[in-house]
């Protein structure tokens, strides 16, 4: 164990007592968010005796850990990309497709629920649907003679996890991209068609470039969202799929890597990936606000 150095005391107390009002909040955040995270980050660069080292980070570059990162990244990318695409299409159908406006409020509410319906119950829902005895699996086999299993589909696999993650990825995309689609001004479309643009040209040269930062930013957000999902993965696959959150979970529970500091390094890698994705999201979000208010 190493001592965490206490934060520098605020010198402004006697000058401005207003600081005191946010002290409880600052203390809470420090104790239960910042310090635990710092403990992991610092620990990733320490030997058991507390001295500085890069060995833990280097230890990540072993085949089993690298492959777990790689699978995690692949699942996150594919579920984020497909989630963005389907979410965008659904939001566009809802906003621009001339559907009754009454559909909108229930769909947005449903998106709010579905994007929060992650974790263990979600895994069960998909087991009951696409698992070996699931609703869809059995239906396809008895009615159409399509055997998903024989075709190589397994819910406890890369695609199984991706399809499951889409259940919270698509709604999140819908929630974020709908306001952006609302921000597309009717005048832009009219101006484009006055200048002779076809519908496809309008989308390619006006609408998509404006929406692009939003879409890409949301992609980054969805990526981080999938990368950090622990409960769904564990409930769905147990420990049969070697992805980062599952490995880290097993490491925290029972030190399966045989080196506590390697666990720190793994967690640090996770912060790094989700942190980077979120930075991309924030930067692109600020950019997209230039056009869409």
């Amino acid at each position, binding site marked *: 164990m190493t001592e965490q150095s206490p934060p520098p005391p605020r010198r402004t107390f006697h000058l401005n007592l207003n600081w005191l009002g946010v002290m409880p909040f600052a203390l809470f955040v420090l104790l239960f968010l910042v310090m*635990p995270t710092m403990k992991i980050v610092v620990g990733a660069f320490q030997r058991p005796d507390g001295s500085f080292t890069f060995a833990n980070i280097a230890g990540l570059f072993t085949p089993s850990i690298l492959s777990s990162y790689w699978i995690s990244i692949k699942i996150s990318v594919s579920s984020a990309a497909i989630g963005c695409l389907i979410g965008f299409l659904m939001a566009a*159908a809802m906003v621009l*497709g001339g559907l009754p406006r009454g559909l909108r409020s229930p769909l947005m509410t449903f998106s709010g*629920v579905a994007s929060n319906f992650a974790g263990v*119950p979600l895994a069960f829902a998909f087991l009951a*649907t696409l698992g070996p005895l699931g609703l*869809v699996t059995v239906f396809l086999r008895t009615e159409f003679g399509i055997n998903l299993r024989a075709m190589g589909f397994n819910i406890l696999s890369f695609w199984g996890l991706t399809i499951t993650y889409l259940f919270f990825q698509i709604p999140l995309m819908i929630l974020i991209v709908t306001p952006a689609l609302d921000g597309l001004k009717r005048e832009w479309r009219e101006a484009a068609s006055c200048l002779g643009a076809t519908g496809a040209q309008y989308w390619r040269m006006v609408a998509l470039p404006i929406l692009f930062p939003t879409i890409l930013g949301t992609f980054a957000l969805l990526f981080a969202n999938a990368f950090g999902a622990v409960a769904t993965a564990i409930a769905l696959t147990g420990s049969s799929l070697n992805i980062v959150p599952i490995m880290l979970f097993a490491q925290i529970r029972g030190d399966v890597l045989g080196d506590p500091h390697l666990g720190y390094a793994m967690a640090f890698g996770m912060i790094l990936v989700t942190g980077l994705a979120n930075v991309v999201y924030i930067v692109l979000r600020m950019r997209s606000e230039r056009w869409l208010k």
Partner: protein
Amino acid sequence: MTRAASWAILLLGLTYFILPLLGMIEFSLSMRRGEYSFDAYVAVLGDPQFRQTFSYSVMMALLTIVFGMLLVVPTAFWVRLKLPHLRPVIEFITLLPLVIPAIVVVFGYIRLYNTSSWLPLTGSVLGTNLLLMFGYATLSLPYMYRAVDTGLRTIDVTTLTEAAQSLGAGWITILGRIILPNVLVAVLSGAFVTFAIVMGEFTMAALLNRPAFGPYLQLMGANKAYEPFALATIAFIITWACMGLIQLVTRFTKHDKAAR
């Protein structure tokens, strides 16, 4: 995009969302061979472990909500009133739990507050419960803070505070009798999200070894055939009810404001 294509996309999308829910419900009802029954629900509701973990999680959710309110409402109020230049910083901090995965945060807790540390919270049951509640409060911080801050935006905090002060009210009175009633709807919607999060949370409770609903769900999933699906249906209904209640309170106040 043509209307037909829009309908097609929407219906296809909705099919994807409805099928898993159908599958889950169908499975939860088919415990008895050959017919639908509520046997799985009866079995689950009769399980003492279900009652224990469920009430534990409800308790934790309520405590987290109270704690979150006490933490967030005064802070958001104070920042709006006295430290407006700090708002972006505070807002950024409250979004951090969305960036740092929960599993990393709880890993930090375990290492930082273990029995040999300066604050051995994980050494006792009460301490671990407290730590888990702080963890939950951290997870719900982004939603709670945003809800309350949005609520505060709709009222004139400065004027209300000055008016109350000139009538002789202290800070507690101002917060409890002026600010809180005015942002109650915002606080409630934050509270419902918090409730939904805590009821379904798995990672923190499992790693801190607390008997919460989420780990119980996972355990049942590994050991039973039909009960997990009944549990998942119950969990889905809870999430749905929380989100529905948010819609309800929000709509209710809109109506309330229009009538004024």
